[in-house]
Structure formats: C-alpha cells, structure tokens
C-alpha cells in the first residue's frame, strides 16, 4: 500500500516537474554548467587562451594606467569577455575555470552536510532520549557560532601544507570541510523532525511489532520517506554553498592564486571598480549558477510538496 503510494507520488512529482518550464530551464542551465566545468580544459583549448596566460600586450603599460586597451575592458572576438587589467588574462577562460572550483566545492560540501545531517538527524529523531538531547544541543552550539567569522578564521590559520596535502587540493578539501561541516545542523533539524513524525506513524510501529530489527526499520522504512525532503534541501543547499565559497574566496581565504575562482576574481576586481567589466563577469557567473540551482530547487520542492505552491 505504502509503496504504491510512494511510487505514484514520485510519478506525480516527475509529471509536475516536467511541466514546470522554469525549473526545466534551471535544470538545463545546471547541466550545461556542469558540462562546462568538466570540459573546461577542452573549451579553453578551443578558445586558445589558458586561464593563467598573461596578455600584457593588451594592457596599457605605456600610459601606465594598466587598464585593458580598447573599449569595454578589451572585449574582442579573441577575448569575448575582455581581459583583466594589469596582466591581461582572458576573463572568459577564467570564468569557465572558476566554475570548476565553485561547483566542485559546492557539490561535495553539500554532500558532506547532507550525509552528516541525515545520519545525525535520523539517529537523533529515531532514538530520542539522551541521544536526541545531546545531538540537539550540538546543533544549537553549531547554530550559535558566527559561521562566516569562524570559517574565515579557520580557513586563515590552516597553513599551506597540511594533512599531507598542499596547493589547490588542500584548499579545496579544506573549503569542502569547512563549508560542509558547518552546514549540517540545518538539514539535521529537518531530518530529525521528519524522522520523529514518521516514527509516530503506524507503519514503523507495525514493522517494529513484526519484530524487525532497528537498523532495518531505519533504512527500509524511514529513508525512502526522507528522500524527498533531503533531495529538495540538497538542491537548495548547493547554491547557498556556492555563495559561501564565493564569499570565502572574496575574503581571501579561498583557493590560492593563480587558480581562478569567481569570488577571488571579484575580490581582485574591487580595486579596479572603474573597470566594471572585471567584476561583471564573475558576478554574473555566480548569479546565473545560483539562480539556476534555486529555480530547479524551487521546482523540485513544488513538485514534491504541492502544498507549498
């Protein structure tokens, strides 16, 4: 009975989602962005300007302004987005490469938060009692932390070589950990609430009275019912994490130079506010990516939970 209903709910959701054109647009943009990130080396090869390549012949070094030569930040067929001031790096390939860092960190940080949050939420909600009390207090502690301040502090004190890693890989792992680790209580609360309400339902009682062991109940009965909220929350957490990563990079504790990141590019652009093209492209890239995830996430939520429409 339950299973039939579950499947049809999924089908209904899928039908609704298919009809939601805006969400589909969001989804397509996400797919394109992911493809862009994966294929970045190929795309950039086709463009012909690696992200870290200097093109100082396109910079006004003679006049001393260090601004890109030509109009609109040196936009041309060769450099469709223009070039950076000072070193003349191609903005388009930097923006494309920036998507890799952004998406990679956002995805894995989300995965980390969702994993921790789900496990903690289920454990807390299902066992109740002191376990619940302990985990709930832990969540309170996490939520009481001034998150961003803390993240900057932590990202700032870790040296450049640590835990057997260095360079970009260290920074990426570090950022995934910081972003992911601090975000779990949010999903933890949702899962906990869902678990508690599901636990109260008959079907779990029924399974329990039939002598099913606890882990079995946990995974066969609870998890399928948690899939929808977790899916929705994850989709909506990704854009939050993209913004988080961008913020950390903007504040100078993200992935190190010369690796291109959107937040880092914006941070570089601050000192060149008279050349708006420089801040426009990375800003737009963040905007479009986050918007796409939000659109898709909203659509997914509406499809899975029609009440919220």
């Amino acid at each position: 009975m339950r299973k039939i209903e579950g499947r049809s709910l999924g089908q209904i959701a899928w039908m609704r989602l298919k009809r939601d054109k805006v969400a589909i647009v969001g989804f397509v943009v996400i797919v394109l962005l992911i493809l862009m990130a994966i294929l970045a080396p190929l795309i950039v090869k086709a463009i012909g300007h690696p992200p870290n390549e200097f093109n100082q012949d396109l910079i006004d070094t003679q006049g001393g302004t260090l601004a890109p030569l030509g109009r609109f930040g040196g936009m041309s067929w060769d450099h469709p987005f223009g070039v950076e001031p000072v070193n003349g790096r191609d903005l388009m390939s930097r923006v494309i490469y920036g998507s890799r860092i952004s998406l990679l960190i956002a995805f894995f940080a989300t995965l980390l938060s969702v994993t921790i949050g789900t496990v903690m939420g289920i454990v807390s909600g299902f066992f109740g009692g002191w376990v619940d009390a302990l985990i709930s207090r832990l969540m309170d502690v996490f939520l009481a932390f001034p998150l961003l301040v803390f993240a900057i502090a932590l990202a700032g004190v870790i040296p450049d070589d640590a835990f057997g890693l260095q360079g970009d890989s260290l920074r990426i792992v570090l950022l995934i950990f910081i972003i992911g680790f601090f975000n779990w209580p949010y999903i933890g609360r949702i899962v906990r609430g869902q678990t508690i309400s599901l636990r109260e339902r008959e079907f779990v009682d029924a399974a329990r009275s039939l002598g099913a062991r606890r882990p079995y109940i946990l995974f066969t009965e609870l998890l399928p019912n948690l899939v929808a909220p977790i899916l929705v929350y994850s989709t909506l957490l990704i854009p939050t994490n993209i913004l988080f990563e961008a913020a950390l990079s903007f504040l100078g504790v993200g992935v190190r130079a010369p690796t291109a990141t959107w937040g880092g590019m914006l941070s570089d652009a601050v000192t060149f506010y008279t050349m708006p093209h420089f801040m426009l492209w990375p800003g737009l890239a963040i905007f479009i990516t986050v918007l796409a995830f939000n659109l898709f996430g909203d659509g997914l939520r509406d499809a899975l939970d029609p009440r919220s429409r």
Partner: protein
Amino acid sequence: MSSTFTTSGSDKKGCTTTMSIKRLRTVAALSAVVALALSACGGGGGNDNGTAAGGAKNEFNAGLAAVVNPSDKKGGTIKMGHSDTWDSLDPGETYYGYAWNFARLYGRSLLMFKPAPGKAANEVVPDLAEGLGVPTDGGKTWTYKIRKGVKFDDGTEVKAKDVKYAVLRSTDKETFPNGPAYFEAFLNLPAGYKGPYKSKGVNTDSAISTPDDYTIVFHLKNGFGGFDYLAQLPQTMPVPEAKDTGARYRNTIVSSGPYKFANLQPDKSFELVRNDKWDQATDPNRKALPDKYQVSLKVNADDIDNRVISGDLDIDVSGTGVQPASLSKVLTDPALKAQADNASLARLWYTSINPTVPPFNNIECRKAIQYGMNKASYQTAYGGPFSGGDLATTLMPPLVPGYEKFDLYPAGPDSKGDQAKAKEALTACGQPNGFTTNMAYRSDRPREKATAEAFQQALKPIGINLTLKGYPSGDYFSQYAGNPPFVVANKIGLATNGWGADWNDGFGFLSQIVDSRVIRPTGGSSNTSVRIPDVDKMLDAAIAETDTAKREKLWAPIDKRVMEEAVIYPGVYAKSLLLRPKNLSNVFISEAFNMYDYLSLGVK
C-alpha cells in the same frame, strides 16, 4: 619591512629593523672612522626653503623639486585620510615614513631632516638641539645642547632628562616591539638593561648622561660617525616620565611641537590643534601655518583618492600613492595629471633566488631566471611605470648616493626577457628541459601576488614550472620566506621581497640585504639568498673608508658582485603617484620621506 596592515604595498620606513644586534655591533666597531664622512653629507647644499614668490607651476611633477603655492598665510584646517590605522603615534615606537614625517608636528627630536624640496631635504639640521652633535672620543660620545625655553603642552620646560627618558624607554622592545632598534645596539647600556619599566632605578649614565638640564651626552660602545642620523629619529622626541603610560602612551602623548592632540580616538581619528606653549622663537624649522590637522583613519582607500581629487580631503597621509582604480583616472585626465607628482623612492622591489634550494645551487640556473623573467611584466605587476616604478637592473636605486647604472642580464629590447640566453643557461645548468620549484609571496599584497603570477607565466615557456605559495605578511620573514630551514625544507626557490633604507645611504640600503651575517638561523631576516664572503668583506671595507667620495664609489662594486652571483632578481625602483593637495600651500615632496612634507603645509 613587513606589515600586517598594509594591502597596497606601503612599507615601513625602515626595513632596517632587521639589523640584528650582533650585526650592528660589528658595524659600530667599524664606523668610528666614518663619523666625519657621514656628517659631511649633512653639511652645505642648503638652498632656501623655496618660499620665493611665485613658486612652481601647477603641472605634473611640479612638487618634486620646487614649492607649489608658496605662502605664509596662517589658519585653516588640513584634512588627512588614512586607509589603515596609524602604525603608532608614540614617537618611541613609530616606524613608518609618513609617521616620521608627521610626528614632527607634535614632537621635536634633537635633529631633523630639513623641510625643503629636492635634494636639500637630505640635510640633517638641528631641531630641539641647538646644533648638530659634537663627537668626541673617536665618535664614541656625542654631545647635544638643548634649546632653552622649549615647552611641553602642559607648560613644563623640556629638559635633557626628558630626551634621555624617551630614548631609554624606546629600548624596551617588549613594550615597543615595532620601533627602530638602533639605540639599544649602539648605546653603552648596562648589561641586561631592559628599559626604564623593567630595570627601574638602574643607573644608565654609562649610556646617556645629562650633566645639566640642557646638555645630553650619548655614550656609545664603539665609535659611530653617523650618530646624527640617529639623533633625528622620533625616538629622541622628549617624553616626560611622569606622564608616560607605556604601551598606552600612544593615546596620551604629551606634545613638544607646535601642535597637540585633541579628540584622539584610537583606530578612528584624531586632531592636532595648536599647542599654545610652543614658541616660534625656539624653532627655526617650523612655520606652523594651519590651525588644525584632522586625520581620519581606516577610510576606504578608493574613497580617499576620490575625496582628494574632489578637494574634500587634502592628503592621503600614508603617502603611498593612488589606488589602481584612480591610476587610470589620473593619468588619462590632463587636469588631474597636472595635479599629481610621481615621486621616486629609495626602495627596490626584488625577488630573492635562494641558492640553498636546488637546482639554484648552480649559478647557471639562477641566471636562467635572470634572463627568463619578463622584466616588463614585473613592472606592470607592481603598478606600471608611474605607480610601480622604473625597471631595475641593480640593487641600489638611483636615489642612493653611489648608485651606478649597469645591466648584467639584458632583458632584450622590449625588456621581456631573453629566452635564448635563458635556455642556454638552463643547458649549462644541466636542466635543459627546465625544472619545478616554489615561489613565495605575501598573500595579502596584490602586487606581490601579481608578481609571483608574472614569474610563473614568464618562466613556463623555458620549462621552469613554479608553484606559488602565499604566506601572511605578518609571518613572512619570521616563519616562511625569511626562515632558512623553512626555505630549504619547502624548496622555496624564489621569494618576493622589497627593501628601502631608513635614510638615503648606501650602507643603510645594502647591508641588510646582502650581508650574509644578518641571516639568522631562526628566521626574521630580509636577506634570504645572499651568502657571498667577498661581499661581506667588501662591505666592511666600505664602512671603514673615511672619504665620502671614495666610500660612495665602493657601493656599486658590491652591488655588481651580488648581481654577478645572480642571487637577487631586481624588479623595480619604486615610484609612487601622489595627488597634490588642491587647497594647500607650500606643497613639495621631501626627498627624505619621498612624499609631501607635512611640516610645511599651509591652507591657501
């Protein structure tokens, strides 16, 4: 010198702070004979203060050699902005050029640099003292007579003991960690002396004696001819012991100059208002034209530029030049450009090539860097020809007496490096296909970041792959790029660096970056790459040379010898593009500070 605050590449005045105590002892031993030579450069050459009617025309670089808008009109308020916090207002601890420049408004050191445009500013003239120091005992004792009638802002007269106390307290480096460390190195202080706070009641007459209220005598361990340079440091500005509050004195300074503090809010703003106890008759150097100085701290740097352009603010007090965004504005607008001065600094931005890190133990591999690097992109990374500086091929900047132009590693007609020669060098080094190494830079300095990126790009075509390592500037020398074991362990082949002397002098400029004896195994030295026994000997010989003209000729060979070893890659001789205050009079650039002279300004 490193600073945790600065982001725009502004540097501490000195950078000689690194002078290790041990090194300074050696120097002192040698410098007795130099005494006359150094003071010689303080004599003569003084044209008048440039207040002749008319003054310089309002055009680009007008303030470099002449006074713009000369006037004796009194009154008005000068508004200054600073994008950061003041390093320290305490004369015992301050160590930035702009702060030394500014400190003269509220404090009177024994001597001072002459407030005059152009070269004349390098002359040391008496201030609180009646005359220059009188050396005896082979430069081991220096006697200064203090002017009578100079008063603190509370009305008490400045006595010799106040100067003595000021100098002694500045030697407590635990309380005043960031100040210059010359006095404790040169003065014959009792063993284990830790300053007047910790060593209370200790008799310090062996170091400074005050035979009467208006005489102060410095007793050095060894003779030092250049002591007058030390006597112009803000550390000799008198501090009344009764009103000293140690580390907190920076908030409660008792003025001895024409202005005193008002409305001081640490890290935010302060004002200088007239000190009515100051007497013009005791002061030949100051005109004290404006009624008031207003200084706002922690103002957005771009905002400062815009407000200086609009006239809402008079001066960016840090004197480090305009922000990148304003650069294009100023240089492309003829009216604005006419309102700017492009000052040269006695400072070199360079990159250390560490021979302790293979394969840089082979000189050919170091040469590959010298040839392979694109010098033009170094300049661009530092801000271009106006805001960054001129292409450098030597260690000593042209402003330093004794500078000689040479270029051992020509970078090609367009200064983009000589790839053919670089490859030749690589082959000679036994690394024809290149190699991989690391490059350190201060991550909170955009210009150093750009420099490191420029190296990475320029060296890639010849097969040298750089991994960039950003370190916080606060720990850059003590823990990272200036820490020899760290450099070796982490294979820091290249490290961005910079150097400017406390005053324009070959010794002050070179010794800290080329003398191998200043390298400390525990870190903290700016010299990370130069270990040439020849050079150490040549330095000692130069300091021992008594004849100024001859001595100045000895610096260039040292410079050349270091360049032959290819352990330093010179980038640019620093310059800064300064916005000339619109509404002020008596505006000129002091070559002693390489920025506008804050003592002479008036309001139009």
